């Protein structure tokens, strides 16, 4: 069985490196991973959708059930935008500073994708289970983007700094 010694040594060495890397990098060091997806059952989640608007109505910043805004949601695939990247911008950003907002507008290629006179309403979508175990999904407007401007939701952000040109 000596012929297997080398196989064993390399495999166990990589296994040890694997354990070291995932334990010190929150479970992820590609391709090593603890594969934690869907490990937390029942936890609330946050994703994102983009709605296209022709006009801005007074209720534009209102929180609505996702079903209500669903007809206006556009396909990000059709615009060559990675939907998961967009969802992660909406769910993982803690501080929306100018750099992050410009990165968001750049990823969406807003100046190219948004035609004149139209707006994209960038919306956070939050889902959770109620105590009665029914699923609730809400759409929370975050930013209104035109071909050259981004406006923050004044109900969430400081209204003194609510607009910039990207």
């Amino acid at each position, binding site marked *: 069985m000596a*012929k*297997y010694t080398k*196989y*064993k040594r*390399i*495999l166990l060495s*990589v296994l040890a490196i*694997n354990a070291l890397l995932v334990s010190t*990098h929150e*479970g*992820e*060091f*590609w*391709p090593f*991973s*603890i*594969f*934690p*997806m*869907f*490990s*937390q*059952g*029942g936890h609330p*989640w946050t*994703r*994102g*959708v983009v709605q296209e608007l022709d006009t801005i109505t007074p209720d534009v910043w209102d929180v609505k059930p*996702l079903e209500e805004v*669903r007809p206006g*949601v556009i*396909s*990000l*695939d*059709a615009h060559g935008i*990675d*939907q*998961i*990247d*967009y*969802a*992660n*911008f909406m*769910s*993982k*950003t803690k501080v929306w500073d100018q*750099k*992050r907002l*410009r*990165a968001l507008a*750049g*990823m969406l*290629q807003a100046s190219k994708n948004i035609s004149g006179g139209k707006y994209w309403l960038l919306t956070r*979508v939050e*889902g*959770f*289970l109620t105590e009665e*175990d029914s*699923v609730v*999904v809400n759409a929370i407007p975050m930013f209104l983007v035109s071909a050259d401007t981004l406006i923050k939701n004044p109900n969430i952000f400081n209204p003194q700094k609510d607009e910039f040109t990207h």
Partner: protein
Amino acid sequence: MNSLIKNLFTLDDPDSFGVKAYLRLFELFTATYTIIYAWKWGSYIPRISDVVLPLGLAHYIDVSIFFGDVMPWVLASILTLVTLAAFLFRKYSWLYLPAFFLLQLLYAIRFSLGEIPHSSNLVGFSLLGLGLGFAFFDKNRQALHFAYGFVIFFAGLGYTTAAFCKLIGTGFHWVDGAHLWLWIAEKSTDVLSAEGSYNLNLLQMIALDKRIYATLILLTGIVTEFFAFLIWWKKARPFVTLALIGMHIGIYLAMNIFFLPYMIEFVIIGFPLYILFDKLNKKFNLEHRLSVSY
């Protein structure tokens, strides 16, 4: 331990045309997907201008220096050349190891916006296995057998680890059908965002109809994952592979997540296709028509 090693690395397989063709097919798949990822990730990087969530190597390297229009193409081109050289010329097959580190770097650059995809992990293990195999073994046959066993080991480990994560992260009530309802809503939102519309399919409707149905779907999934380590043993491998492919089809139907590279690679590594290749060789005398070596 020796029995496990023997089962993993299939060292007792015959030195036949079928085995050579089988291992080379595994190598071809790995090289092809490495090049596909190089260009897929490389072509997306010019859109990125900020690091939202650093992953892997990005903890140690400022990946933003690779943003822009030039560097991603340079990295993808180098990776393609290195991979082709490793596949085509045995003298340079050790280049799979630097190819692995280049792909790892491209992953860290591409996925710096918060997404943590796992669809490329099996290809990553395959590339690392080939790199280590050709770097540490003198004989090509041993190197390819090592790479094959290496990826089988980490595939089994990954799924079983995922089952443990669920039990640790949530507990035995992870299988509660209400959790699947919430995930269906989450993944439906992703489809709505990507495609602009979505409709529930039959499996989703069944899961949403009664909690017990959703619970049974989750129970089947976690049991399959838990026993995935049995893929390490040669006799169980085809059956575990079938169960894992079935589970991935279930994940696709229930949550719209499809791991195409995993499915292709499982079809290659999970079944003893070399038996089929040997039979074809016997019938059509392929050995004399095709030049296949380790």
